[in-house]
């Protein structure tokens, strides 16, 4: 058994009167890739934002490397720096070049010297195959390139895990492939990843486990071949039938 990087227990989230998460237990070990699928409105993105410490839970606990994140007076920013996050919406800093985007975190948060941060950033941009685009501004990059810069920005922090919130949802199919290819690379290199996506090819190839979420709960989970071929719950079966059949 590997070391558990990120976990949660009885996680619930309420917005006003609406319970978006209704009790989630989850853990992911170092080097694992887990994929979350499920219909829109099932709470996938909310779950991810909570695990990224971008919003506090209403109830329940989140553990980072065994420590109760909200319960032990830890510096949340120090933990956030160790949890990478790639967003669905374009979220690059628009006034900075690709290089500037990737280097800002190491410089400001990790307090690296400028040349050290730059080396780190270029290395990360190389990993996502964008070193030649390092001096372009986000507005000059395609959606796929922007998402890859977003991945490089997370990588440059040397995170212990990266969370991906439907990183290809707003991309054309070819741009989706280039992003997915980079993510497969990372998974094979042993980067710990928790990914919300409906790219089942990605899930089949690299996921250790797929989690099916519906109505604020994890309904079913299992290795990809099992869950994708023989989902046990009717809801997962129905969802997958529609996702694959396009009906």
């Amino acid at each position, binding site marked *: 058994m590997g070391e558990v990087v990120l976990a949660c227990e009885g996680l619930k989230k309420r917005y006003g009167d609406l319970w978006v998460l209704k009790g989630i237990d989850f853990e992911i070990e170092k080097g694992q890739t887990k994929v979350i699928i499920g219909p829109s409105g099932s709470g996938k993105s909310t779950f991810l934002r909570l695990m990224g410490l971008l919003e506090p839970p209403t109830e329940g606990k989140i553990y980072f490397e065994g420590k109760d994140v909200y319960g032990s007076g830890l510096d949340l920013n120090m933990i*956030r720096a*160790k949890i990478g996050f790639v*967003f669905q919406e374009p*979220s690059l800093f*628009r006034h900075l070049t690709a290089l500037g985007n990737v280097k*800002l975190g190491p410089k400001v*948060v990790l307090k690296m010297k400028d040349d050290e941060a730059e080396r780190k950033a270029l290395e990360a941009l190389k990993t996502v195959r964008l070193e030649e685009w390092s001096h372009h501004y*986000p507005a000059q990059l395609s959606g796929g390139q922007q998402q890859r810069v977003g991945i490089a*920005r*997370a990588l440059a922090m040397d995170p212990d895990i990266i969370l991906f919130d439907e990183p290809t949802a707003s991309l054309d199919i070819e741009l989706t492939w280039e992003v997915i290819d980079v993510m497969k690379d990372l998974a094979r290199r042993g980067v710990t990843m928790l990914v919300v996506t409906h790219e089942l090819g990605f899930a089949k190839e690299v996921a250790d486990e797929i989690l099916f979420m519906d109505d604020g709960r994890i309904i079913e989970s299992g290795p990809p071949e099992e869950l994708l071929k023989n989902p046990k719950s009717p809801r997962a079966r129905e969802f997958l039938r529609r996702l694959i059949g396009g009906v």
Partner: protein
Amino acid sequence: MFTLENFLFLLQGVPNTLAISFLSFALGFALGIPTAIVKQFSPYGLGHVADAYISVMRGIPVLVIMLLFHFGMAGIIPVFKSAFLSATFALGLRSGAFQSQIFRGAINSVGRQQMMAATSLGMNRWQAFRYVILPQAFIVALPGLGSEIALLIKDSSYAFVLGVLELTKYSDIVRKATRSFLYPYLIAAILYILITFPVANYLDRLGSRLKTKYGLR
């Protein structure tokens, strides 16, 4: 008769007009950014102080502030013995309130997603603000700042009432000396346009150019 000499004499008012406008703009900038930040974060409940400052400045005619400073408060605050400084501070204080509103609108336009992205890297609120939000907000604010400078250049003419030798005062002197009622003010009007137009227009265009470059809205 209005002559070339009259025109050259009138031009002597321009430096003071420029000095009052740009100094008060700088003062307004120095007050506006912290006020916008205080309104945004309201540290120690200071947001109400910022609100009060903005409401007061929005509610008093700037001429009344000038008169109050120069004639009412010179005894308490020696700086206000100077008509020039009274006018500059009055305009600067009001501009601080206006500029804070310009910056706040610009800060809000940058959007939550940028803040969230900065937070995900582990930046605290101040770092996110300093390195991510403010630089973008500044670009968005440029056209608004252009209008604000134009407003200050025009309103610097109120300093005439305190006896400051600026453009309006000079045109009035020429009017009295020449008994020409049309030309001194007409020339002053044209000079005001010649000063305001390039400044405001430049900031407008710079703002548009940078917004396109960075894909800002």
